[in-house]
């Protein structure tokens, strides 16, 4: 059992590249949210990634393997870290484009397509391997649930707190 990696090849390199791009963009974009809101959005994305992966991607259900093996490795953790900025950007642009009742469904659908497309790319570069009858269209259900939940949760937080930094 190796806690670092099974073999350091294209999927590990791809995760490093994706992490670099995602976190570079995170630091390049101006910080618009208050610190605790930024952390909250990052943590929400990370936790959703961990929750779904350990629930449907492991244990008895085990619909997919990450990074060539069912064992927990350093790069599995790095993979979950990608979900943190994904969630942050989702809300960042949600706020930036002032998404409202009429545009809500289109915005969610757009991000669901982005999410499912990313997962398809992950299968092509070997980060994720489906098994036990899981197919990529099933991911629509996962992303629709998570993106809708994240947006509604943000609306709830925004209705009760000052979320943006004061200029």
């Amino acid at each position, binding site marked *: 059992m190796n806690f670092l990696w099974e073999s350091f090849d294209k999927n590990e390199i791809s995760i490093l590249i994706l992490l670099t791009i995602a976190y570079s963009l995170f630091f390049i974009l101006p910080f618009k949210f208050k610190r605790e809101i930024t952390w909250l959005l990052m943590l929400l994305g990370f936790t959703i990634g961990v929750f779904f992966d350990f629930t449907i991607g492991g244990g*008895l259900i085990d619909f997919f393997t990450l990074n060539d093996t069912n064992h927990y490795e350093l790069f599995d953790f790095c993979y979950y870290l990608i979900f943190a900025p994904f969630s942050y950007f989702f809300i960042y642009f949600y706020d930036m484009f002032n998404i409202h009742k009429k545009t809500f469904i289109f915005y969610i659908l757009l991000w669901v397509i982005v999410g499912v497309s990313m997962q398809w790319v992950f299968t092509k570069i070997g980060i994720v391997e489906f098994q036990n009858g899981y197919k990529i269209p099933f991911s629509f259900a996962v992303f629709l649930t998570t993106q809708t939940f994240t947006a509604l949760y943000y609306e709830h937080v925004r209705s009760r707190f000052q979320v943006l930094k004061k200029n």
Partner: protein
Amino acid sequence: MAFTVFFVSAWLIISIFIIMPKRLTLIENTFIFLTTSVISINWTWIINEELKYVKITEDPTNYAGFLIFRSLIIPTLLMVQVNLYNASTSVMKKGLVFTASVICLLLLTILSRALEVSTYKDWNLGFDVVYYVILHFFSIGVCKILRKSTRNEVKHL
């Protein structure tokens, strides 16, 4: 049976959380729920699947009970505990809340073994006690750090 027991327990603890007067904000409660669920999920995976210290049932309905315990009951109970802990005015009351919450998790763990959801291999209840106590301290720490960080940000503005 295990599914019903854990489902009812989850319903009960979530209901208690919903109706109780909250001392923490929505953001603080969310932070506690998210951080403790990440730890709970990772901890159970490492102990059960990687180190094989505990064997988890292969019966689908009982396994659903295990998932409810791991991902819903533990983080929600910790949220309830931190709210009650912060509402307590004396050290004695804080200690009672802390102890009662740890005992609740231990009883559910014992129930989990009795209903054959989990079977100890190279593990014992003492290790679970240590884990739950650390998890409780961690949840209280998350709340304190968050409050301190928010206060500092207000000072800087």
